């Protein structure tokens, strides 16, 4: 008989086992999705320790709320990211309510004014990371979920609790803001030239 926590089991099958309280299945699910969730948590929180706490909180919620998972509504990876996304919002709201406000222009202008010029042809990952981190929360989330985590626009919408059109709009605005920040950096460089 095939084990309930076989490596070949789908996430949905593992979730059924977890709903019955199977810790082995939970451990396997954690190992499958830990890196993805940590990557998203790092992008949202920006700090390693905070990202670790966020990921741990998320898995704790997954264990405790396993019964609320419905395979007809969402894939497991989408559901996991949605829990993490919502927990991050709760954490930030508890600490600094205005952090989630959509005030992007000031941050982008501040980045452009730094002494860290961005090469328009081949920026390093660190430079791109810095640019993405200056984006407003919603744009940063949509961009990360779409490019870094590889979700479809529909899934991004399901995770963020918005429609597909809204996701497309957020992605377009994010790209526009990133280009604007790069252009501003190039201007800064040009002005610094003798």
């Amino acid at each position: 008989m095939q084990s309930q926590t076989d490596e070949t089991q789908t996430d949905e099958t593992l979730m059924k086992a977890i709903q019955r309280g199977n810790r082995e299945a939970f451990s396997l699910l954690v190992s499958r999705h830990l890196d993805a969730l940590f990557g998203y948590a790092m992008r949202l929180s920006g700090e390693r320790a905070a990202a670790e706490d966020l990921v741990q909180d998320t898995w704790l919620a997954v264990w405790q709320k396993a019964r609320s998972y419905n395979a007809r509504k969402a894939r497991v990876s989408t559901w996991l990211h949605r829990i993490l996304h919502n927990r991050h919002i709760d954490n930030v709201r508890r600490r600094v309510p205005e952090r989630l406000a959509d005030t992007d222009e000031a941050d982008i202008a501040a980045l452009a004014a730094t002494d860290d010029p961005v090469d328009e042809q081949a920026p390093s990952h660190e430079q791109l990371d810095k640019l993405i981190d200056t984006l407003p929360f919603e744009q940063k989330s949509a961009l990360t979920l779409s490019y870094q985590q590889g979700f479809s626009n529909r899934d991004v919408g399901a995770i963020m609790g918005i429609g597909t059109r809204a996701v497309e709009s957020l992605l377009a605005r994010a790209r526009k803001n990133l280009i604007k920040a790069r252009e501003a950096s190039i201007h800064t460089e040009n002005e610094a030239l003798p």
Partner: protein
Amino acid sequence: MTGKEGNQRGEEKSGEELPDIQKALERDLERLRASRPAAPAYLQERIMANLPERDPWQDLLDWLRASTWRPVAAAALPLLLGFTVGLTAGDDLELEPTTESLIFAEVWEAYETDEI
């Protein structure tokens, strides 16, 4: 060169190179997935070590909340049970004449002896 001239030059340059910037950005964004940071090895152990026992009441509540039909079914269950009992045991619940006589025997007796 004045600052204004410098700005104009920068605007012209950025105007010409905008498609290149867009392409470069798209290329870099596509590479984001490969540069995703990996979770530290101890994190999974930490998660598993801090896993609490599950509350069965919370499990039941979560199960009810997972789909719309579940709370509806749970609410309808006592109603269905009542109907079933009512339909199957309806005749048995009526008082038989003998039982009725037993209950009211004392009253009848008092009535007959003109005490009431």
